[in-house]
């Protein structure tokens, strides 16, 4: 976000056409990917291939929302990494708990 100097007279700036166009393009991508997920859910057999496609598409959607809508791409690198790097810890949480779940499964059944 570029910081605006506040002028003494507060004027309304004209719409930023390019920016608005980009917003709608990202919106189109998000809706399209959701539609693709929806179609795949019924045309493909359930299995690891389908689940991997879902996870990849979800991560693409999430990055579009975070980088464009939440503007993270245009922030300072320091802010970007201080949000992004802690998410690495989540990878371990996911691996550990899914392993835990399958171990409980083996104990139970």
């Amino acid at each position, binding site marked *: 976000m570029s*910081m605006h100097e506040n002028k003494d007279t507060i004027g309304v700036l004209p719409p930023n056409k390019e920016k608005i166009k980009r917003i*709608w393009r990202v919106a189109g991508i998000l809706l399209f990917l959701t539609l693709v997920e929806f179609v795949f859910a019924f045309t493909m057999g359930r299995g690891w291939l389908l689940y991997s496609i879902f996870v990849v598409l979800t991560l693409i959607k999430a990055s579009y929302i975070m980088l464009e809508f*939440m503007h993270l791409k245009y922030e300072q690198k320091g802010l970007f990494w201080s949000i992004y790097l802690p998410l690495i810890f989540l990878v371990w949480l996911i691996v550990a708990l899914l392993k835990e779940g399958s171990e409980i499964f083996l104990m139970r059944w």
Partner: protein
Amino acid sequence: MSSTAIEVKTKRGIWGGGKEPLKASYGKLMMWFFLLSDIFTFTAFLVTYGAIRFSYPAYSGESADFVSSNEYWPIPEMIFDAFPFIHGIHLPLVFVALMTFILIMSSVTMVLAVEAGERRDRNDVVKWLLWTILGGITFLSCQAWEWTHFIHGTEDGTSLTYINSLNQLVTETVYGANMYVNQYGPASFAQLFFFITGFHGFHVTIGVALLFMAFYEAAVGVYERRGHYEMVEKIGLYWHFVDLVWVFVFTFFYLI
């Protein structure tokens, strides 16, 4: 909240010490760190879902022949197949896809409100905030219907053998869902549904309240007098986060 005329003339975002860490205002930076902590909370919820799901047997037959039982984990698309006002027709995931569409669109109108705020266009900010509020309320209404349908269940129900709240082993036809038993699958399936979508819905509710506040303050000119629309930006960050979480809930709860 109140700001004096002197503050209006200073550069927005300078903190008490005269510096602007990470080129972000205090409020925006703190909103980001709050959202980071919220990401951890929601990840914990979804990973718990994954862990518990993995600890149950998966349904092994064809999707089309799926029958609910508390012996194995259900296939979500066979559970969430109802649509308001259309009775008895199998429409898997159509309603959830519609809810996703509504929430993404409200995220888009939010971004447009933020864009309008950057150029201090009060009319556009008010217009787009109103659309966003409308999207949020529609989403919440959809979720209310979804919950009602989930709790009341289908007409036929499912015959289950389970331990009821009085600690007795019973076999009976179960309709709908509560925290003890549900007709769709193991008890933890409904518990996780209530916790995950409920916690998300709680966030949406708070978001709508914040949007109302921003809408009111923008409309009466509070932000215009303040000289900037940073509050819209901060609430925007929160609102996009709510959308972000739903993208994950949609995939991991409904699709997989």
